[in-house]
């Protein structure tokens, strides 16, 4: 077995202290749905595993300014099925339910969801080079099997994507990540939480090595009536997104007051472009007006041998998501509270 020491943190301060002490070789474990896989594949080899499951961070409660606070240790399932999440942030509920399987969602936590690693095949196969796993070793995905890889914000070093569904909705909702570290608490706007690969693909977010996510704050949202999460994938369930779109509209009649669009499956982070979203402001919610927005979102996209189709697919998915959002959240709710997969 991989020998690591195991500690159970009794408090957030203890967790932070233990992580700090492990000096980069420590990992928090909560649901373990990603870390255990990575341990088995020898991708992660922590010397210290810090169990945070007993920390009092599993609640979902009212947040400041009419928002909702999601505890970092609340499970994905409890979050998705929470009545206030379903009522006020339906795209988030659907995004979570579009991911993984019921069993995994029962184990996976909100904090862990933000920190899951890419599903790039080369990252997962330790016999292969990977700049993310072994900086400087190269990126065979760029010229290899890159169907699951990104088309936006990629670099010469890495074209991996962030695999989360939940995070796409969180990005669109402009959630705020609350973290705790040796210097106390701070907040990170969602757009600044995940990073692009650039020359340091091994760095995936702006969380310091000795910080812990304690909660995710959802601000009050005017989008509940027109919120969708559209996920396009290679099978109807239990598959990562080829392209996914969280689309939120604030409508006045058929006029768009404001729009939020976040893309999944295409980049190293949930992809947003507020200036492109702004193109919709004041326009009527019609396909004709959605098309240029979709095109603008993918204007700088770069496709690779096996994933160039994501550019066209992504545009179509954006249009579809905006059309569904226009129709209204209620109109697309099926018995499971899930959208149809397209």
């Amino acid at each position, binding site marked *: 077995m991989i020998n690591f020491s195991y500690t159970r943190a009794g408090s957030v301060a203890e967790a932070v202290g233990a992580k700090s002490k492990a000096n980069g070789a420590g990992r928090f474990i909560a649901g373990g749905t990603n870390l255990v896989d990575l341990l088995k594949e020898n991708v992660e080899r922590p010397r210290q595993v810090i169990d945070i499951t007993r920390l009092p961070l599993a609640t979902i409660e009212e947040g400041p300014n009419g928002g909702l606070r999601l505890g970092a240790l609340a499970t994905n399932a409890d979050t998705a099925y929470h009545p206030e999440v379903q009522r006020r942030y339906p795209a988030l509920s659907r995004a979570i339910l579009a991911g993984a399987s019921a069993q995994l969602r029962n184990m996976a936590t909100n904090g862990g969801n933000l920190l899951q690693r890419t599903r790039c095949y080369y990252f997962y*196969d330790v016999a*292969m080079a990977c700049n993310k796993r072994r900086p400087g070793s190269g990126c065979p995905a760029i010229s290899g099997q890159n169907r699951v890889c990104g088309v936006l914000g990629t670099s010469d070093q890495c074209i991996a994507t962030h695999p989360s569904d939940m995070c796409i909705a969180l990005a669109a909702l402009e959630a705020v990540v609350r973290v705790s570290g040796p210097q106390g608490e701070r907040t990170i706007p969602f757009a600044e939480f995940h990073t692009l690969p650039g020359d340091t693909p091994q760095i995936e977010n702006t969380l310091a090595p000795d910080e812990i996510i304690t909660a995710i704050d959802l601000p009050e949202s005017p989008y509940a009536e027109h919120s969708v999460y559209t996920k396009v994938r290679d099978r109807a369930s239990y598959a990562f997104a080829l392209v996914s779109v969280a689309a939120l509209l604030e409508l006045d009649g058929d006029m768009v007051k404001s729009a939020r669009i976040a893309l999944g499956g295409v980049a190293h982070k949930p992809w947003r472009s507020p200036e492109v979203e702004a193109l919709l402001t004041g326009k009527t919610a019609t396909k004709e007006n959605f098309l240029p927005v979709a095109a603008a979102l993918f204007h700088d996209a770069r496709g690779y041998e096996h994933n160039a189709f994501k550019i066209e697919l992504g545009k179509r998915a954006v249009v579809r998501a905006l059309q569904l959002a226009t129709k209204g959240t209620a109109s697309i709710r099926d018995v499971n509270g899930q959208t149809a997969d*397209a």
Partner: protein
Amino acid sequence: MSALKSIFGKDVDTTSSTYLGKPTSRVDGPAKVTGGAKYAAEFNVPNLLYGYIVSSGAARGTIKSINTAEVEKVSGVVKVLTHENAPKTAYLDSSHRDQLASSGGAPFRPLYKAELEYSSQPVALVIADTFEAARYAASLVKVEYEVAPHETDLRANMGKAHPPTVTRTGYVSAPKKPRGNPEGAYDAAAHKVDVEYSQPIEFHMPMESYASTVAYGEDGKLTIYQKTQGVQNCQEYVCSVFGLSSSDVQVISPYMGGGFGSGLRPTYDIYLSVLAATALRRSVRVSMTRQQMFSFSHRPEAIQQFKLAANSDGMLDAVTHTAIEETSQNEEYLETVVNWSGLLYNCPNVMLSHQLVNLDLASPADMRAPGAVTGLYAYECAIDELAYEAKLDPLAFREKNYAEKDQNEGKLFSSKELREAYRQAAEKFGWSGRPLEPRSMKKGSDLIGWGMASGSWEASQGKAAAKLVLTPDGKLVVSSATSDIGTGTYTVMTMIAAEFSGVAIENVTFELGDSSMVYAPVEGGSWTVSSVGSAVKTVCQELRDRLFKLAGKVDGTPLGDTKIGDVTFANGAMHVTGNPVKNVTYAEALKAGKIDKLELDTTELPQLAKQATHALYSHSAVFAEVSVDEDLGTIHVTRVVSAIAGGRILNPKTARSQIMGAIVWGISMALEEEGMLDDKVGRFMNHNYAEYHIPVNADIHDIDVIFVPEHDEVVNPLGAKGLGEIGIVGVAAAVTNAIWHATGRRVRSLPVTLDKLL
């Protein structure tokens, strides 16, 4: 049929049966759902060592060095075996050829030489006293390679295609000479298609990963608990490779968590476990990881070219079919791919060719209807294209060109109710309303399409034996060294034994999966019921003869001078038909004969003389409905109706499950499965269940299975053709044809993923 009966003597009992033809639940079901069923990696023996396989990261080249310095420091590590220190096994390649190996070639030998044959091949085995220690230590093995250029790209190497140079059991080579004049007929024809179809490498994907637990006896004898579809094939292989006597090797495999052909040939885990056990004189278990399940066999990639033509009446007039498949450098894997195209429809002008390209990959292996599923996927798509060229409904085209005999061999079919299968499936599906033109049906933003295809598979029978033991408590135990790969062998053999012995089914036990049992061939090719079932039937009939003779010794001779033909055997007793009072129980018969335990065994051979004059095949008619999101390209197979003409159906319950499962695999083949090979590194990159897609529940909708009655006295004494393969054949074509009908797009490469429809 009466004529057949007079020629062939024994009748096929299809009328008054007690068990056969009645839906029967799996006799092994309770053991499986309660965890009582033990699989190869679950047999624990004292002082077991655990071997963990280190796999190669390069496809071709030489192992320069294997550094195990760090490994040996790990507490619990007993030994690291590599090509440098592994004990030598049999020298000759022929000693490494199992029952299903090709006649030439050099089967892969793990830890045999420094030269690499393919990426992910085993290069070391770390043996430790716990699994965890072995696994961790294996991660510390440092292998350095002198990498050499590899070739894994079939298309880039098409120029190296060559006809097979060897043979293999079950392989039917393409007819050497063309039938008629296909080129001339093609040139002159009114309607033509000239198309190429391709399909990727697919993997078997059983849930249970391969494992081998070798119990090393005090006397040096080996008891091997092995995941395999052929315990005797494994036993022979181990004896041959390691120079052991058959009395010193017993292979046991009572259950199998799916095989799909991957366990027909011995897998490298058994080689490694026996290598370690004999080297260390200890009990050893070696099991594969999920990733390693992608490292020893696969369905070969295929590129198939067709030139088909029909005359102005829509009669098929020319078929040219060339299939090019990959194989490894060390073996020619052979499956029958093209012959189906000369068989399925009437056609006077046919030319068929099957070729191979050697690549730096593991040898392919039989997988789910090997050959037929490949050949008929592409042929049935091409036929669909031709039917449309001729502006004929695809079903009408097939009915018009229906083959009443096997033109490859010039033989009549022993039975072929394909026409009836078409009729019943089409009716159930509602095919008659189908518009000829594609893109004619819509539902919301979805395009709807209907497609169909035919399937065929050979109904073969091999030599097999069965043994029975009847004890005075009325219990009957029947055994044969076959397997149950999840298909229901335990159940159907129990039913056959009960039917023909007259012992009530609850008093019958069928045992299998032990090389010390009487002979059975590997479980594959849909021939287990036909082969082993026929042997079970015969031995049980012999039991009745024997018991009837013993009944004559019972005091008072209750059966009098009744002839055996007038005696009913039921519920463990014989009685004069129509007069249950005049009876003798089996226990009384045994007692009268002073027999404590009645043992009989028999070996059943196929009735070659009568089989040779006929073509023996099962058939299917598959109809599929798809809905395709016009903008996003997502595809759902919303309905499948499959009618199977597979001879007599012995257990309709498991038969239905088997066909449903096969249809799911067909949908899987059509839409999802693809071994993603990175030709630059010569390695499969999606080697896990998350990324190698097979269907989930949400992908599967309505599936309807119809069994079309067939009476066949030629295939075997049971009249059953076997259902292991036929269910998948044609499904991928039906789905692909439906996608065309929905979208107007002919996607000629599998899987049909949404990007191909954008």
